[in-house]
């Protein structure tokens, strides 16, 4: 499969939420793809949600491997995984602040898994983030800063969610990261309920300040 074909599996035509799939990690996917034997491609078991809830969207903010694998696990119970990774790669051999190299092979693997799963047109979304996006510490000026933030324009508005019947958002991660917190605070102000889970415990509603 080439980059367009893989992208189209993650973002099939005329399906709800797929317009938010960020193209950036797909662009060069069929060029120089490194072989990663170290990746464990086992689909994880999801503890924090038992079955699909049509009124609930999920945002996974873990490392990229876990994020994509959990996205596929949630697809198996009916969620539409929407990868919103937006980091670029440094020039060849240049050290970057953020390692995006594992996202590409995982998206290819995920495409093969997703191709076997039939999702409803209006399946609720699970947005996939990489918590390592915020690694921007440079030990030296020569390092390429390819960290990135998630911004309000990268996700649907609160109004859009509510219009589509989504009233709750579960954030799954180690913590609610600063950039995401700003977006969620706005959602909360606009009457979306925000829940948090560390992946083991049941989601609990949280209050956020901008």
């Amino acid at each position, binding site marked *: 499969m080439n980059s367009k074909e893989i*992208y189209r599996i993650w973002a099939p035509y005329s399906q709800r939420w797929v317009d938010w799939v960020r193209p950036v990690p797909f*662009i060069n996917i069929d060029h120089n793809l490194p072989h990663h034997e170290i990746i464990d491609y086992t689909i994880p078991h999801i503890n924090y949600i038992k079955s699909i809830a049509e009124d609930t969207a999920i945002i996974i903010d873990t490392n990229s491997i876990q994020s994509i694998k959990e996205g596929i696990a949630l697809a198996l119970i009916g969620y539409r995984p929407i990868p919103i990774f937006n980091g670029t790669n*440094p020039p060849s051999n240049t050290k970057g602040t953020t390692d995006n190299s594992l996202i590409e092979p995982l998206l290819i693997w995920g495409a093969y898994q997703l191709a076997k799963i039939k999702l409803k047109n209006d399946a609720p979304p699970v947005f996939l983030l990489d918590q390592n996006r915020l690694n921007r510490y440079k030990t030296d000026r020569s390092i390429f800063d390819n960290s990135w933030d998630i911004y309000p*324009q990268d996700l649907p508005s609160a109004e859009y969610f509510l219009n589509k019947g989504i009233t709750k958002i579960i954030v799954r991660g180690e913590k609610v990261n600063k950039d995401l917190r700003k977006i969620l605070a706005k959602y909360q102000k606009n009457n979306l309920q925000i829940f948090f889970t560390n992946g083991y415990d049941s989601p609990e509603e949280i209050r956020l300040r901008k």
Partner: protein
Amino acid sequence: MKLVRILESKFEEYRLNAIFDCYKWDPQFLDSNTLSKYVLVLTEKEYHEVAKLTEKLDSETEISEIFLNSHLDLTKILKLPKTPLLKNMSNYDKNKHIRLMRYDFHPTTDGNWVISEVNSDVPGGFAEASLLPELAIKTIGNKNYYSINFGDQLAMALSLKIKAKGTIMFVHCTSYSDDRQVMQYLGDKMQSLGYTSLYGAADHLKFVNKEAYSILDHHEGKIDCIFRFTPIEWLIDIKPKTWSGYFDTITPSCNHPIAIFAQTKRFPLIWPILEQNGIKLPTWKKLLPETIEVKQAKGKEGYIYKPAYGRVGENISIKEACSKEEYQEILKDVHKHPKKYLAQKRFISKPLTTPQGTKYHVCLGSYTIDGKHAGFYARISPKPRIDSDAEDIPVVIERSKSHE
């Protein structure tokens, strides 16, 4: 000028091809698709008219900035970023650098064109002005349409001033993929012509004897051209101050920081001084709505406020184009920092109506490279303010009947 619809049945494939073949990596903004379902079609008469006006504007801008560069004592009214380094630009030689600008044209209800600004420092939209029109023509299948490939012209201009097989550093904010998409398009193009393209941040350059050197990990060495997409006023905020060399470098630059004089939207406020010194600006004066200081607009009707260094329509006080909250915030900031803004007579944009009856306001960006017209980049919006909610639309030209 008219809007032609891309067939609904073809649009999703067009969008996919725009993403993968035309460097359109940001196809969604909040709840909006950033890629228009329409194509903007200019007549040849409109094309030549705008191209001619653009070159006239550019000539006046260039004369002005060269004059101001040697008369910095007169530039107080511009409220330029406070840096003594502007004095270092005295060695600026326009023949060594590549000067790229984009003028934003709008059709008005009285049948004329106005311009809202010049993107003097870091205009973008390169792939949208090069590959997207070609894709649109192929999708529509109308052989009577053609387009200008802006990228071809920019690459040619760069090639004239950079040594063969030289290395170009594409300086941008590396955390933003929407900046990288602009740089990557041009970088790939230059790479295909035998140049080496490097992608780095402003502080990945150091300057020795006024020449630029890359310090990027594994890509250290002399640079033959700086292509900068980091705005000059952001560059000046970077700490530590590693950027001073940009101001007096002899390494060919696009753009050189001399762009700052016309980048500030307060540029019209210095026109009286320019005219006193024999510099004529008839095209600017004809096309730009009256621009005055904020305090002079007090109590006057029909003026809007614009930030001196605003981008993509941000913080412009067009009441019906802002939320109530945003409008109040702008007015509050104008009141607090009047010198960071200017007041401009509002013009009434004439929207184009689609065959389906929808009205869109148009901003037609017209590029120049070293004084010559080089192509178009356009955005449309249902609102009169063309801002981040607007859609990118390819610009094509319809052959006049006399050519058939």
